[in-house]
C-alpha cells in the first residue's frame, strides 16, 4: 500500500459538512471505488450546475449534498472523489440545475434527485412487489457494487451459434409457481436450482427476458372488473442499463443481486449453457412529457431522447419515448454498457428489443450505415458475443432480411414464425415458404448464411405453442384493456374448438400439431429458439400478451411436465436429434449441387414421389433429403436425413428416395404413428419396411435417417 499512499490524489483538498473530497477523474463515468474513496463522474451538456446527493441506505433524507465546484467540471463532465464513504451503505444521486425549456429540448428540474445513468445497482425495488414509499424524494437510488467476483476459470462459452438451442425464459416465471419445488422461487438462485432440468431438456443457451432494473409498479393498476393487480411484469421498460433487477435476486434485499446473478451465469456455463440477455435500448421508463423524471430526462434530456422539432418525444417504441442511440454520447453509453455485461458478467450474447430503432437517426429517419450497429459489430470486447436483433420497431420500420448486419448480426426471423404457422394450420400455397424456412431462409439471407436467422414459432409475444393450436382468437380480457392489446394476426388454429375441450380427437390433434411444430423447428437450418414451457404444453388460456400478470398466466406450472410427459420426451428427443446430426447445423446455405460426387446434391426436394416436389397452391405435402456427406457444409459426415411433412387432413402415401446400396431408411420421428409413440431413441430407430409405400399420416411429420 505504501507506494499508493504517495499519490496525492488519494488525499482530500476540500471539505464540506464534515465530508472530505477533491477533484475526480473524468473516466470512467459512474461511481468507481478508488483507494480511500469513491470517484464520481457524470455527463451533462446543458446543465448549469450539479451537486452530489448522498444518503445512508434507506434513509428518507440525504446526509450530505455537495455542489461540484466549477473547477471539477471538465468539458461536459462533473467529477469528484469523495473520501471515507461506506460504499456498502451509500446511496447517491445528482441534482442538476439548468433551463426548463421543453420547446428547446431542456427539462431540468432541480427539485428532483436523479439516478446515475452509469449506476451499477439501483435501490428502491429490492424485494419484488414490496410496497414502495410513494413519497420518497429519491425512489430509484444509485448504489455501488463489488466488482471482484471470483469467476475462477470461467469465460463466455463461445459455442458456434448454429449449434445453439436457445430457450427464452422469464426469470420470475420459471420457478415462481408452487409446483416448481424451488427453494428460492422466482429468482436467479431459483434458476440455478433448475439447471438439472435445463440439462435434461438439452438446451444449451438461455435467453433471459429483461433483467435490467425496472419498476414492476410502473403503470400498475387494478383490473376494472376483477380487481386483480396488474403490473409491469415482463419488464420491457428500463430504469438503468447497468443494474441487474434486485427483485429477481433472492439476496436482492441484502444488495447481493450482482453476486447472485454472476453465480447463476458461472454455474450455467459450467453446465455448458450460454446466457443471452434480452436488452431494451429503445426506450426508458421515463415515458413521454407526462412521465416521471428519474434520470436521463433530468440529466440531459436533449442528448438521451429523440425529440420532435417542438420538443416532444418521438414514440417509435410505442411506449412514450425513444432513446437517442445514434447520438455519440448515448452510443458510447450503450457500448460501455454491453462491454460491462460481456466482461463483468460473462454474458454470451444479446437480443436487442425493437432493434430497428437502433438504426434510426436522431430525427427518426432510418440510417444507411447506423454508427451504433457498426460500433457494436466491430467492438473488440464484444467480438465473440452473439448479437441478435428484433429487426422491427413500433414505428413501422420492418427490417427482417435487411437489418444492417456487418457480417455478424443475426435476427429474430419473424417470417419463419409466420410461414410455419400458416403451413401448420393448413393454409394453401405455403409449401414453398416451408421449403425456404427449413433451409434457413436463403430467400431472406442470400449472402448471410443460415445463422442470420433465429428460427422460432413462439416467443414471449403472442400465443404459447399449445395455445397456437387451441385458440383462433386472442383472449386478453384479463389484461384490462378491453381486449384491444396484443396482435390479431396470430396465424393460429384451434383444431375445431375454441379453448379447452373434452374431445379426444381434437386434443390428440393439438398435441400432434405441437410435435409437428417442434419437429420442423429442430430440423431447420439456422438457430432454433424454444419458448419456456412449450416443451410441456404450457397454456396462457388464449392470452397472447401477458405482460402484466404476476400469476399463473405466466408462471410455469411444472405439473405439466408429468401431465404431458409424452410431449416433454418428444421435445427432448428432437433436441438430442438435432445435436446428434451435424447435417442439420450448416453455417452456409445449400448449394443444390453435388460437388463431391456423392450421388446426390446436398439437399434434394421431394413430394409423394421422389424428386417430384409439389410447390403448387393446392399442395400441403413437402419432403426433402439432406445428404450426410455435406454435413457442416461438407466438413463432416453424417447420416442422410429425410424429412416429410403433411398439413393435409388426410394421410398420403410416399415413395421414399432410394439410398445408395446397402443403406436403409430408419424411422426417428413419426408424429402420426397411431399407437402414440412418435419417436425412437438414437440408435434404436427401426428400419422402414415399405419404402415405396410409406404412409404419412394426416397433419403429421416424419424424420427418417438413412444409414
Amino acid at each position, binding site marked *: 500500500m505504501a507506494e499508493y499512499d504517495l499519490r496525492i490524489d488519494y488525499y482530500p483538498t476540500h471539505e464540506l459538512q464534515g465530508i472530505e473530497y477533491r477533484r475526480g477523474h473524468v473516466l470512467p463515468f459512474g461511481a468507481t471505488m478508488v483507494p480511500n474513496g469513491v470517484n464520481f463522474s457524470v455527463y451533462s451538456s446543458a446543465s448549469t450546475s450539479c451537486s452530489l446527493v448522498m444518503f445512508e441506505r434507506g434513509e428518507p433524507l440525504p446526509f450530505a449534498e455537495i455542489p461540484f465546484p466549477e473547477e471539477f467540471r471538465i468539458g461536459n463532465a462533473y467529477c469528484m472523489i469523495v473520501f471515507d464513504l461506506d460504499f*456498502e451503505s451509500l446511496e447517491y444521486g445528482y441534482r442538476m440545475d439548468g433551463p426548463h425549456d421543453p420547446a428547446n429540448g431542456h427539462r431540468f428540474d432541480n427539485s428532483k434527485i436523479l439516478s446515475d445513468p452509469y449506476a451499477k445497482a439501483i435501490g428502491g425495488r429490492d424485494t419484488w412487489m414490496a410496497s414502495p414509499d410513494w413519497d420518497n424524494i429519491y425512489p430509484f437510488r444509485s448504489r455501488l457494487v463489488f466488482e471482484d467476483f471470483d469467476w475462477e476459470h470461467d469465460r463466455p462459452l463461445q459455442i458456434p451459434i448454429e449449434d445453439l438451442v436457445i430457450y427464452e425464459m422469464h426469470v420470475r416465471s420459471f420457478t415462481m409457481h408452487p409446483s416448481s419445488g424451488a427453494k428460492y422461487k422466482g429468482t436467479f438462485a431459483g434458476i440455478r436450482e433448475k439447471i438439472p432440468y435445463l440439462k435434461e431438456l438439452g438446451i444449451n443457451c438461455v435467453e433471459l427476458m429483461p433483467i435490467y432494473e425496472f419498476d414492476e409498479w410502473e403503470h400498475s393498476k387494478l383490473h376494472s372488473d376483477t380487481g386483480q393487480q396488474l403490473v409491469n411484469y415482463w419488464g420491457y421498460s428500463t430504469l438503468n442499463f447497468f443494474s441487474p433487477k434486485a427483485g429477481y*435476486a433472492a439476496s436482492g434485499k*441484502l*444488495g447481493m443481486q450482482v*453476486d*447472485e446473478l*454472476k453465480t447463476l451465469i*458461472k454455474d450455467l456455463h459450467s453446465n455448458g449453457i450460454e446466457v443471452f440477455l434480452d436488452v431494451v435500448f429503445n426506450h426508458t421508463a421515463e415515458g413521454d412529457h407526462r412521465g416521471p423524471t428519474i434520470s436521463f430526462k433530468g440529466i440531459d434530456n436533449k442528448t438521451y431522447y429523440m425529440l420532435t422539432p417542438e420538443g416532444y418525444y418521438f414514440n417509435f417504441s410505442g411506449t412514450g419515448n425513444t432513446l437517442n442511440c445514434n447520438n455519440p454520447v448515448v452510443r458510447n453509453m450503450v457500448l460501455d454498457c454491453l462491454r460491462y455485461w460481456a466482461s463483468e458478467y460473462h454474458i454470451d450474447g444479446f437480443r436487442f428489443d425493437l432493434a430497428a430503432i437502433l438504426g434510426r437517426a436522431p430525427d427518426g429517419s432510418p440510417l444507411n450505415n447506423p454508427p451504433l450497429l457498426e460500433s457494436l459489430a466491430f467492438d473488440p470486447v464484444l467480438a465473440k458475443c452473439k448479437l441478435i436483433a428484433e429487426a422491427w420497431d413500433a414505428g413501422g420500420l420492418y427490417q427482417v432480411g435487411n437489418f444492417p448486419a456487418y457480417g455478424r448480426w443475426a435476427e429474430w426471423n419473424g417470417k419463419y414464425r409466420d410461414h410455419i404457422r400458416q403451413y401448420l394450420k393448413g393454409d394453401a400455397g405455403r409449401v414453398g415458404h416451408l421449403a425456404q424456412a427449413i433451409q434457413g431462409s436463403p430467400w431472406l439471407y442470400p449472402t448471410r448464411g443460415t445463422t442470420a436467422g433465429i428460427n422460432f414459432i413462439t416467443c414471449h409475444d403472442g400465443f404459447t405453442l399449445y395455445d397456437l393450436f387451441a385458440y383462433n382468437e386472442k383472449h386478453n380480457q384479463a389484461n384490462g384493456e378491453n381486449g384491444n392489446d396484443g396482435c390479431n394476426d396470430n396465424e393460429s388454429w384451434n383444431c375445431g374448438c375454441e379453448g379447452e375441450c373434452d374431445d379426444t380427437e381434437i386434443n390428440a390433434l393439438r398435441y400432434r400439431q405441437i410435435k409437428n411444430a417442434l419437429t420442423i423447428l429442430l430440423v431447420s437450418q439456422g438457430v432454433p429458439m424454444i419458448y419456456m414451457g412449450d416443451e410441456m404444453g404450457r397454456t396462457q388460456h388464449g392470452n397472447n400478451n401477458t405482460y402484466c400478470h404476476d400469476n399463473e398466466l405466466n408462471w410455469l406450472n411444472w405439473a405439466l411436465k408429468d401431465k404431458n410427459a409424452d410431449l416433454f420426451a418428444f421435445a427432448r428427443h428432437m433436441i438430442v436429434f438435432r445435436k446428434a446430426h451435424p447435417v442439420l447445423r450448416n453455417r452456409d446455405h445449400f448449394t443444390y449441387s453435388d460437388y463431391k460426387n456423392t450421388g446426390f446434391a446436398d439437399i434434394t426436394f421431394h413430394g409423394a414421389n421422389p424428386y417430384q416436389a409439389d410447390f403448387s397452391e393446392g399442395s400441403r405435402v413437402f419432403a426433402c433429403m439432406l445428404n450426410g456427406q455435406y454435413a457442416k457444409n461438407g466438413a463432416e459426415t453424417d447420416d442422410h436425413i429425410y424429412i416429410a411433412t403433411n398439413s393435409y387432413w388426410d394421410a398420403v402415401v410416399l415413395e421414399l428416395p432410394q439410398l445408395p446400396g446397402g443403406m436403409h431408411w430408419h424411422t426417428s420421428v413419426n408424429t402420426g404413428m397411431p399407437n402414440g409413440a412418435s419417436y425412437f431413441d438414437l440408435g434404436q430407430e427401426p428400419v422402414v419396411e415399405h419404402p415405396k409405400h410409406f404412409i404419412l399420416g394426416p397433419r403429421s411429420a416424419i424424420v427418417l435417417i438413412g444409414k
Partner: protein
Amino acid sequence: MKVTIQETEAAVIAAIEGSIDSKTAPDLQQSILPVINDRNKMVLDLTEVTFVSSAGLRVLLMVYRQLKSKDGKVFLVGVSDEIKDVMFMTGFITFFEITSTLEEALASN
C-alpha cells in the same frame, strides 16, 4: 465485531462475534490474514455471527484464497441457516468446507 484467535497444532481457529460488514470487514481481515502464515488449515467459527454482508463475504473469500495458495482449506463452523442461505444464493458457499461442530472441523482433512 470481535475476533478471538486460537492456534492449535491442527489449525488456526478464529471465533468471530457480531456482524461482518463493510464497517468491520477491514478489522477482521487485519486480525486473520497475519496469523495464516504458512498454516494450511483455518477454522472460522461463525456461531456468534449475526450478519454477513457483501463485504463480509469477501473477507471470507480472501481467507480462502490465501489458504488455497498453500493447498489448504477453510472450514466454517456454526453457520446459521440464514447465512448459509445467503452464501448459497451468492455462490460463496462452494469455496468452503462446512461442518456443524468445531470438533468435526478439527477432525476433518
